[in-house]
């Protein structure tokens, strides 16, 4: 798990996962889009509490490796100010076969979005700004909390 304030370059990151035993690579890129909930977005600002984002991200990746028979997995998340179209998050997974690579990639991005201490502030075309509140995610998709409830 890494956090960076520089441009994410998926092609370079993908090379870190190369493995002769891999028959599949699945990559996910999250991009900054120009609208959210009916408002035109100008740019986006990510606040990341890096020590815990990295710690929790490493836990998520370890969970994915335990759940699915994959070879390698990595995740990189941006911090700072991003423009429309920029890559905010990248997840890459390699495995012998495609099914587990898709599943693990999905698991990692879903958990990263609801568990890591990362916040985004949208700056709107009309001039105001606001923190995005993903309470739906927080309520339903956190495997860490769900696990604790089950115990």
């Amino acid at each position: 798990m890494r956090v960076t304030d520089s441009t994410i370059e998926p092609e370079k990151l993908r090379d870190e996962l190369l493995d002769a035993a891999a028959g599949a690579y699945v990559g996910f890129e999250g991009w900054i889009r120009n609208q959210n909930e009916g408002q035109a977005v100008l740019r986006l600002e990510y606040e990341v509490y890096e020590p815990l984002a990295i710690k929790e991200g490493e836990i998520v990746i370890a969970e994915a490796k335990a759940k699915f028979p994959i070879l390698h997995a990595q995740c990189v998340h941006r911090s700072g100010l991003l423009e429309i179209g920029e890559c905010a998050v990248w997840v890459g997974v390699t495995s012998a076969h495609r099914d587990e690579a898709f599943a693990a990639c999905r698991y990692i991005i879903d958990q990263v979005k609801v568990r890591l201490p990362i916040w985004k502030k949208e700056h709107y075309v009309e001039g105001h700004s606001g923190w995005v509140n993903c309470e739906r995610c927080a309520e339903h998709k956190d495997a860490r909390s769900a696990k604790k409830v089950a115990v």
Partner: protein
Amino acid sequence: MKKNITVRYFAGFREHAGLGEEDLSIDAATASDVYEQLKHRHGSSEPQGHCKVAINDEMADWNSPINDGDTVLLFPPVAGG
């Protein structure tokens, strides 16, 4: 019994409090008590379950005990990705 703790606010909580960190003497047994007693600071009307807490840089539960000297990190609803 009052405990001396450091509280750190993030994102919207920090903006509402007007500061990122403060040292407090507080009568709190759990992280939940800290959150409830500092509502005037972080300004959140969110249910606690939508927010997260960490103690001394470890993710914690709202019922985690608070000890003298702890640093309590209050996280508003996260929104990565």
